[in-house]
């Protein structure tokens, strides 16, 4: 009596993990796991959002003046890029669900390319700030006049976009891993959990940016 008698199915995916009863349980568990991970990510970012709201309330004039130093056009571009990458990610997942291997690879590649574009734009934004001395806390050395506590505005800006950027980088690494696996034909209608769950992660990364952009770049 091994567990041959236990299998309620035959010919399961090579990626079936045997501590589960069946693929359905495995896929459902993986998805719940990812949602929980995303929940803790939201809490992770929430501290910075709290800091944003607290210091904006304490120094409203700082926020009003300092945010003009940010380039809303570049920020807007990044927003569009990320939104588009969420679309391509969703299409990649769909491609896996309908066994379209080539489409998966293309969509993942485009998603990764968009992520790189995002980072390149951020690089230019950061360089411009560094050049002007618009830096967090004690590093702040801007010669112009911003009232209140500009050091704190830029602390909030760099911490929030920096933490987000780290998550984009992590996303790129995971997306590359997916790309390789998709290229090898691992994903199909019977097994696409990794695609789906990375997709969820990527959508959260996008969603966080959609909050960051107006809060930082479009202060009224």
């Amino acid at each position, binding site marked *: *009596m091994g*567990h041959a*008698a*236990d299998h309620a199915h035959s010919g399961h995916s090579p990626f079936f993990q*045997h*501590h*589960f*009863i069946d693929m359905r*349980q495995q896929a*459902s*568990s993986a998805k*719940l*796991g990812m949602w*929980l*991970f995303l*929940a*803790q*990510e939201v*809490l*992770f*970012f*929430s*501290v*910075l959002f*709290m*800091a944003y709201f*607290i*210091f904006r309330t*304490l*120094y409203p004039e700082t926020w009003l003046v300092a945010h003009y130093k940010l380039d809303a056009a570049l920020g807007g571009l990044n927003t569009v890029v990320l939104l588009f990458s969420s679309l391509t990610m969703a299409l990649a997942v769909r491609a896996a669900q309908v066994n379209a291997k080539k489409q998966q690879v293309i969509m993942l590649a485009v998603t990764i390319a968009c992520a790189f574009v995002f980072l390149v734009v951020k690089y230019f934004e950061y360089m411009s700030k560094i050049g002007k001395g618009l830096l*967090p*806390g*004690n*590093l702040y050395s801007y010669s112009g006049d911003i009232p*209140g*506590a500009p*050091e*704190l505005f830029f*602390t*909030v800006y760099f*911490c929030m976009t920096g*933490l987000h950027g780290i998550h984009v980088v992590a996303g790129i690494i995971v997306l590359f891993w997916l790309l390789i696996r998709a290229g090898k034909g691992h994903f199909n209608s019977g097994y696409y959990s990794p695609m789906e769950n990375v997709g969820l992660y990527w959508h959260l990364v996008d969603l966080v940016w959609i909050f960051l952009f107006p809060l930082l770049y479009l202060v009224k």
Partner: protein
Amino acid sequence: MTASTIETAGHGEAHGAEEPSYLAAKKGLMSWIFTVDHKRIGVMYLASIGLFFLIGGLLALGVRTMLLNPEGVNIFGADNPAQYKDWYNQVFTLHGAIMVFLVIVPSIPASLGNFLLPLQLGAKDVAFPKLNLASFHIYFVGSLFMIYAILSHSLDTGWTFYTPYSTTTSTSVIAATFGAFILGFSSIFTGLNFIVTVHKMRAPGLTWDRLPLLIWGLYATSVIQVLATPVVAITLLLLILERTIGIGIFDPTLGGDPVLYQHFFWFYSHPVVYVMILPAFGVISDMITAHSRKAIFGYKAIAASSVAIAFIGFLVWGHHMFVSGQSPIAATVFSFLTFAVAVPTAIKVFSWVATLYGGSIKFTAPMWYVYAFLFLFTIGGLTGIYLGALSVDVHLHDTYFVVAHFHYVMMGGTFFAFIGAIHHWWPKMFGKMYNETLAKVACFLSFTGFNLTFFSQFIMGAQGMPRRYATYAAEFQAYHVASTIGSYILAAGLFTSLFVMIHSLLKGEKAPQNPWNAVSLEWETTSPPIEHNFHGTPVVTHGPYDFPEIDESQATGHH
């Protein structure tokens, strides 16, 4: 005497003879370091937690010994009073940091939780075994940072790392907080794993209202771990940035606020005390039922109260900050909610005592620890009431009264429950019995020593003895001496427990599959369990504590 059916296996005793236990299944150091077996991971956590408890405990003995005299006792050979006080500050800080981050937070969930959760659910493992291993490796890496901090410039901020002291002192704050940051992820991943396992991998017939209360406790704990830990993680990162580049959010000279640190810190650190106690509540429920052969009194209330405590526990963090400069309105709301969270806790204690009614109670070593827990946790919980009351807390905050309160709940509560639980499940985990008499002697010594150590601290705290003091006014000396003597007795008790465990591993007699004749699923398989836990999939047909009914049906010959 099984009352659940295991498909494809025989009735009664599981056939352990053919398949080796999880301890013997694979051999060699690598088979442990890279195991994905939740039971081995649980055992490795148990050993690590035991090691850090030893280190943290020795530091505690150091603190107590240094406090025998109002001017201090120079046990480390400091060159002058300033150095002596610095060293004292480091000893109490390290004691707290090690105990909180490396011992109490992981304690029951990481060791016993890992071992028992899949077994009690009738599953082969947790949902993500590789993630589970990663949790342990992350714990190990986090502990290395802590060890590095101790060996390099030590740590003298108190385990709470309040700013601006923590951003300006010259000790190894960055290494220690980064270590705590890493340890946080170990905690998050364990919690995530448990939640998914409970939701998705329960055996057929194991409905939510048939879950052992340990599972409910671990579940509520896991929710807190997943939601609260990221908050302290980012807070510590911000602290590190404040120390390195001076980002300013906690620095008043740059427009920031040191009290903001306290809010962020306690938003995690209050819920984390429920992470510490909820699993202890869980093991108490399981033990008290098994050793009194009774169903739990008020199952639904106890299960629901765990969830209620987890939820309300997120809303009370400001009771650590009544005198910190927050507004009186905020303080009032926090005080009100603090009393709210006391009600579900009280319900549990009453329910446990009621469970004893009409029972058949065997005075085993685990039961000694259950009684000790009820005694000590009741004192700990009741003394929390003083601290929740605004006007009284003004007097008691940051005195030894608080120190006594949290040791009564965290050590008298969690740790006594933990040791009792280790005894209760020891036969299951290692297939050995332990010396019952010595285990009881250990409990008696620990209990006596504990009360002497900490009850005197309530008194001196109420009389105004502040905490974190290297030297003190002469009028408090008698209390300090009593407390120190108590700590040595407590240490003797704990070392005796350690001896009992080691002796059992080396020379203990072989344990039967179910020494307590309990009826939850972990007892349906061999002691120790085979690697895949069960032969086939268990099917559950009764609740976890249905002793009266099961005993009745057996007496009348039904199965």
